[in-house]
């Protein structure tokens, strides 16, 4: 068992977001739940960006993440952003082409890419990050058309193999597409 979450509590002011949340993660997992139920907060705690009010998270390895927003360096190309996080530039270009990038789009800085293109670049940055034992993917298919989302899902299944992965979504169809175990956060 790789990641063990026990009794996790987090509140923002009067709003209790997580209340005694517990979960074991060993391999890939889809985490679903309605908006505002604490999915993103859980990921931020696992990334070390938030501190839990109570409870514990153990076994999180080096993290690579897709955040709620893309968080790409706007002046770098999609492959440049992937390389910045340690990914191999040649592999990055190959995977980006696989997710629909043309030569012209590969040459554009991230600031000039569409929302869907930025999302795919952010996803590949996480998937191609070397040495990352834990992948935390927050709504990675946002802004993608159905066909591209299916290709992205296939890339996730292939590239996340062997790593503890939490993919957060509020979309049940996405969960089904991956064929991964699903856990709900309520």
């Amino acid at each position, binding site marked *: 068992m790789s990641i063990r979450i026990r009794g996790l509590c987090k509140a923002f002011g009067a709003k209790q977001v997580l209340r005694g949340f517990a979960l074991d993660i060993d391999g890939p997992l889809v985490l679903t739940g309605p908006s505002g139920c604490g999915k993103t907060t859980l990921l931020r705690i696992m990334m070390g960006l938030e501190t839990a009010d109570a409870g514990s998270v153990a076994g999180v390895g080096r*993290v690579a993440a897709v955040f709620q927003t893309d968080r790409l360096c706007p002046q770098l190309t999609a492959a440049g952003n992937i390389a910045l996080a340690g990914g191999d530039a040649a592999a990055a270009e190959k995977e980006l082409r696989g997710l629909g990038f043309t030569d012209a789009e590969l040459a554009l800085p991230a*600031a000039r890419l569409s929302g869907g293109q930025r999302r795919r670049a952010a996803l590949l940055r996480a998937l191609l990050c070397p040495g990352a034992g834990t992948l935390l993917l927050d709504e990675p298919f946002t802004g993608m058309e159905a066909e591209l989302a299916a290709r992205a899902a296939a890339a996730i299944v292939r590239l996340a193999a062997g790593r503890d992965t939490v993919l957060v979504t509020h979309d049940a169809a996405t969960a089904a597409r991956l064929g991964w175990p699903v856990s709900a956060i309520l």
Partner: protein
Amino acid sequence: MSDLAQKLKNALPRAAAGLFWLAVWQLAAMAVGHGGLLLPSPVQTVAALSALLPTGAFWRRIGFTLARILLGFALAVAGGVALGAASARWRAVRVLAAPPLALARAMPVASFVILALLWVRSANLSVIVSFTQVLPVVYAGVCAGIADTDKELLEMARVYRLPVLRTLRYIRVPGAFPAFAESLSVAMGMCWKSGVSAEVIGLPDWSVGDALYRAKLTLATPDVFAWTLAIVALSALLSALARHGLTAAQKRLCGEVAA
């Protein structure tokens, strides 16, 4: 419409405005009279400048003043960057730096020059004055730039454990550079004006300020105007060079986003 035609169209109103004010100046000089003693005409000013330009003394003075003001500017930029970065990191530095920087911003150049003359030789006055005028501006620019840096990108860098130098090169510097560049642009104009003002009070040998003052003493008013014209032209040249350099640096560091 071609680019050239568009540029001409934009330049024409500015050229017309310049010509209008030259005509006003010429008419005012003619109205005042006294052979240009009180108000030399544009022609007299250009003639005086033409007489100064071929002399070695003119260029020696320009070189003397330029070197010192730019030295003060460079020291202030280095100091402002170091102090701004330290202030962003340590609150104690920010608190400690605030009073002297506020004083430097508020203090009239003349007061500071008179005090500085007690401590340094007049030859180095423009270095000190340029430094003290530029430092608070650059410091404020660096602080604003650091505050402007994208927090979400910094979080990304933290999660991905990006090395410090990569974070600096690809996130912190591009984030802070636009505000820093703006401060340099403002400071460049300020240091030139304040540096020459200091020289007019301190009268270091072989300075532009000294020449300006001597011309006034001998009632060589066209020379006063000629030196002033030279100062304005140099200021404009330096500002244009700074703008050009900063735009190129910004394009390189920040890409198309800030270009």
